[in-house]
Structure formats: C-alpha cells, structure tokens
C-alpha cells in the first residue's frame, strides 16, 4: 500500500510539474500584440512588480469589488499558504527556523482556510448570479479543498497520526529508499485528495495561479507612447 502511494506521489508530482511547465511555456510564448494594461497603470517596471504584488498578496482588485468574496478567498488562500509552509517540516530535516516558528499559526491557518472555503461554497450556492456561472467542477473543487483541510485538521485534533512515520515515508520517497505510511483513514484520505488536486491542477481553473502573472491587463507597463511595442507576428505584417 505504501508503495502504491509512493508511486502515486511520484506520478502526481511529474504531472503537476510538467503540466504547469507546459502551460507556463505556452503563456510565455504567446505574444501580447497590443498594450492593454487596465489604467491607471504603473509607468515603470518596478511599479508593475508592486501592482502584481498587491494583486497576488492582497487581492487588490477583488477587494475593490466585493468584500464578502474578498474576505473568504483571502482567508482561504492565506490560510493555505501558511498551512503549506507549515507542511515543509514533513519534508526537510532539520526544520528551518521560520518553519518551526510558524507551527502554532499553522493550526489557526488551517481553520481559516476551511472557514474561507466554506464561505465561498455557501456563496456559490446562495447568490443566484454565482450559482448561474457555476459548473459541477466549481463545486467539486471547493469540496476537494474543504476535505483536504478537514482531513488535515482531523489528524491534528481527532485521531493523531504518527507524524514521524509520515516524515520517514516522504524522506524515503526523495531518496527512493522506501518507507511505511501509517494506515490511518484521515491520512489516507488527506493524501489521496492531495494527489487528485496535484493531478488536476494543470488542467483546471487552478491555472489562475500562473495565469495572473501573464495577465496583460496587470503585467504591462503603461508606456506605449514612449516605447514601441511590437509582436513578432505583427512585425511580419510590416515586412510584407
């Protein structure tokens, strides 16, 4: 059983990395022929970095839009971020100091994450506009994340999992030396769902993760008068 999970994780990692890399290369290679930043936009590259930072870390545009969606999704994403950081300790030894320091916060973050996801789920059901635009996959994606968070919290508060054993398993995975996974229901559910998430990420709307960085309305400098912008295919029009 542990071998099956070892293989699953290897496959999921390969799918995730190659799948994402493929999309990133595709985005990077597709030209943006026109300057279309949503203005007012920064007039320098440094300004663009700052705008992107505010967008990625604080969800600036969403904040401007609707406070409920903002608070739920920010709780979820920041919770997930801290939780992921907290998980680093299961994969590296010795545990770096910052990771050790955030351990207690990771617990709160786990709750925040699940609460945020719950809010987003309710909103999807109860706001008629959002219900209208939701496909089954939109609900399932939230449920998947909710169950990942829930099973994770279960291991902490309900049925303790042998974390040392888990760490040995993943350590073994890196060195391909093998290791045994404790066969707890919560852990198996947690890991299975994480594998599913990793595999669907490059084929789903989770492509918003690389997508934001390639969004021309957010990543372009507002300087079209000063600097001529020309896509390769547009250049060919001039030569013909």
């Amino acid at each position, binding site marked *: 059983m542990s071998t099956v999970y070892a293989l699953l994780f290897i496959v999921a990692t390969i799918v995730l990395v190659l799948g994402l890399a493929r999309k990133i290369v595709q985005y990077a290679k597709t*030209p943006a022929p026109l300057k*279309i930043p949503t203005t007012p936009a920064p007039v320098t590259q440094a300004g663009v970095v700052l705008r992107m930072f505010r967008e990625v870390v604080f969800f600036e545009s969403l904040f401007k839009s609707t406070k409920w969606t903002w608070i739920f999704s920010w709780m979820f994403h920041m919770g997930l971020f801290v939780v992921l950081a907290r998980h680093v300790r299961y994969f590296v030894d010795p545990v770096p100091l910052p990771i050790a320091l955030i351990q207690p916060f990771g617990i709160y973050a786990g709750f925040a994450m699940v609460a945020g996801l719950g809010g987003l789920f309710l909103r999807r059901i109860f706001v008629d*506009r959002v219900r*209208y635009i939701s496909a089954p996959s939109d609900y399932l994606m939230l449920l998947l994340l909710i169950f990942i968070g829930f099973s994770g919290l279960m291991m902490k508060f309900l049925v303790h999992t042998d974390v040392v054993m888990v760490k040995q398993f993943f350590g073994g995975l890196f060195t391909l030396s093998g290791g045994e996974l404790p066969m707890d229901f919560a852990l198996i559910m947690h890991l299975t769902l994480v594998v599913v998430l990793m595999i669907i990420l490059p084929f789903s709307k989770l492509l918003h993760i690389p997508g*934001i960085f390639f*969004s021309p309305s957010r990543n372009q400098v507002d300087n079209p008068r000063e600097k*001529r912008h020309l896509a390769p295919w*547009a250049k060919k029009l001039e030569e013909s």
Partner: protein
Amino acid sequence: MAKAKFETPELSEFVDVPNIEEGAMSHSTCFVAKPEHQEPLNFPGERVEDWHDKAIEKMGDLLSRYRSFRVYLDSCVKCGSCTDKCHYFLGTNDPKNMPVGRQDLLRKVYRRYFTFAGKYFPKLVGAADLTEEVLDDWYSYFHQCSQCRRCSVFCPYGIDTAEISMAAREILASVGIGQKYCNEIIAKVYKIGNNLGLPGPALANTLEGLEEDVYDEDGVAVKYPLDVKGADILLVTPSADFFAEPHVDGLIGYGKVFHEAGVSWTLSTTASEAANFGMFIGSYENMRRISLRIREAALELGVKRIVFGECGHAWRVAYSFLNTLAGPFDFLDPDYPVPQHICEFTWNEIQQGTLELDKSENDEMTLTFHDSCNVARATRMGDTPGGQFDIPRNVIKAVCNNYHDMEWDTIHERTFCCGGGGGLLTDDLMEIRVKGALPRMTALQNVMNEKGVTHMAAICAICKSQFTKVLPYYGMDMYQIVSVHQLVSNAIVLNRKTPPEEAPGYGEDDGD
C-alpha cells in the same frame, strides 16, 4: 427586430443588483453585414458553408496570437466578482450580460475543443459544442458588450471581457457573420476617408462655414485649415465633430485654442477620422490599415506633431496602439508625445497662461464630467497615472465656476459606460443602449438633484451621440450633454485680432 418595444427602466436613487432573469435580452440582435461591407475588410461576404470548422480554426489562430485571449480563457475561477459590474447586466438582468456569463459563451466552446477536461468531461466543466444556437448567442451577446473594461478593474486576474468580445467578433466576421454597423463604416473609411462618408469638398465647405460662424459671433477670423502642408500640428478628430451637436462646438473650441496658442495646425482629408472601428471588431489588420492613414497624412503634410480631438476609443487606439500599429513616429518633433490629446494641449496652454479665460461665460451651467470608458481604463493623459481623470477636469474647472463630480463609484476607473460604445451606436440596438445607460443616468440624476448640476461634459464622440439620444428616454434634455471644448470655446477670450484682409469674405463684396 429593431422595432421591438421595450420599457425604459425607472430611475431610483440606487442601482440595485437585480436577480437574474434568464433570456431577458436573448432577442437582441443587430443587422448582419452584407457582402459589400464584409469584402473590403477581407472577410467572406456571407456565412461560409463550413462555419463550424472555420470558427474553431479561427479561435485556435487567435489563441496562438493573443496572450490575453488564452490566459483569460484559462484563468477564470468563477468567483463572481464581475457579475454585478456590467451596466448591461444592471440594466437588463440577463445573466449572459454578466461579464463572466458573456465570456462563458466563448469559454465553454474553448474548453470543449481546446482543453483536456472539456474534451473528455464536458458536462463536469461546463464545456459545450459549437452549435447554431451557440453561434446565435455569440452574435447577440457579443453585440451587447461595449468593451468598456469596467469588469477588468474588478477581476482578480484582470480578465478583460473586451478582449473576449473582440475575439468573438473577429471569429464571427471571419466566418461571414460581421456586424453591419461597424463593417459598413470601416468600408466607408477605406473608400472615402471617414466614418460619415464626408468627401473632401464637403469637408472644406463645412470648415469654411465654421470660420464664418466664429467670425460672425466673435469678430475674429479663427481658421479651420484643411490639408495645409507644413503646418506644425495635424489634428485628427472624429468626423462627428464636423457637424453633429454638441460635437461641432468642441471642434470650434479646438480651433480657438490653437488660434490663441498661436500655433499652426491643420486637418487632413486623408485622415479626416479619429475613430477606428477596427478595434471594436477585434481586427488587428483592419485597425492597422485605418491607423496607417494617419501616418500617411502626417508624412504627406510634413507636420511636427499629432493631436487627437475628443473621442474615447479613438484615444485608446491613438494613445495605446498608434505607435505599435503605425509607428515609429521618429519623423515628428521628439519634444512632444505622439500623439497628444487635445485636453493635454489645452491644459498645457492654460498652465503656461497663454489663454485668457472668462469663466463667467459658462455661469448658466453647473457641470459634471462623464469619464469615457476607453479614456479612463485604457489610456493616460499627461505624465502621471490618473492624468486621464485630472486633466479634463482641470480644463473644465479652468473654464467654469460650477462643477461637481458624480458619485465616486461611478467615475474615474469605476466609470459607467454611456451604453453606446464598442460598436453599439446603432438604432437596431436601441433597447440595449437605453437599458445599458441606466447606471450613468442614475448617477447623473442624483448629482442633478443633490448639487443642482444642469449639464454633463464628455470627451467622446460616441458618448455625446449616445447621450443625445438616450437622455430623453429618461426624461432629461438632449442638450444636457456638452463637449469639454465647447465650454472652453465659451470661455476663451480671443485676443489675437484679425487683420481685416484675413477676414472671411474679404474682397468678395467689392461691388458695394
């Protein structure tokens, strides 16, 4: 089709976010382009036999050429942030007029043909085949979008429905289903030189008439020159400025500003149109071809600078795209940005003190300013971000005593479209135009009630035409919409007097 009866929404103090009403605007459509409108633009004259395959092929082509299109189709998480931001949704309750609802009409087809999930699990991810019904929906709803970009302000990924809408229209035109209004106009630009089909002699005649009018009124011979070689400035302005009201009052204003600034300027018959409807139909090639006329005119006349008149989407094409489409402009004076907006020009002159302005001339009006969507969210004026909001207001405040802004969430980057932009300014789309104006009309009525505003100024030919038509539907007066340079024109004191021999008609009446 165009005659469909509809009810004008009632104005109240707030625009409530409505409950969705599926299919509320599915009947809306506009005339399809005829072969003579399609072919000059290099589109097939009629719907092609294999439209299905051709449309998918075109979508693939656009996906490989436009990063925006590809990234935006992939990235949407259906968070709902944009759902209550579109004026057409707020005015019609139709969920396909929510930005994401509109995008999904295209996205579901993209997923079906171009993504793994959509190919193998279409139901799960909301993917759908391209059918006749989907095609009809595209034609209807992508002509209920004014490409105003308000949704892109609020999208956490900056997804811009305008980009999707442009792509959809390009796909439609490329399988032979173009929109008559836009394509007929573009064909006219190619044939005659401007949207209104005004030939050179008529233009010269109109401008002479303006010179006489100004001379009669002010006793000063302000020139409205056409095709003057060696002039410093080429003015490119929307052709509506040549005779439509209140547009022409703006043109009169530009001329007076140039006159008082003491610069030489000219209009051009080659580039007698600032508008570029190539943008509305999403066609880079057509947009480029239209833009190249301006380069040609600038070279032909040997000017040093290019200035654009009051027009929203034209300023977007000019500010954001002109350098790309028709540049480089290294043959122009490097001391000035290329191109410049007339408001930038006027504001510079005001700051330098070259203009004497009598604000009291506008005292019978209390003004507010409508930020035109393309100017607000797709361009800039001046050196600092947000100059596109400040400079026109600065100009207005320099020529008027009474000014009040509308509510904060309806101006600047959050401005609401007039309802007629993006190629919808046609009578066959009257219903969507009227309903889409609801949020702007609400904000205008509020500022009228609370601050006693009487007039609304704008710097866009489409906004001006749209409001002229739509204001009466909401019980307001069509003359409440004014040009910014009309206000300048009222206030400017003409100090550069005319030598008698330069007066219009001098020497013609020698018989007396």
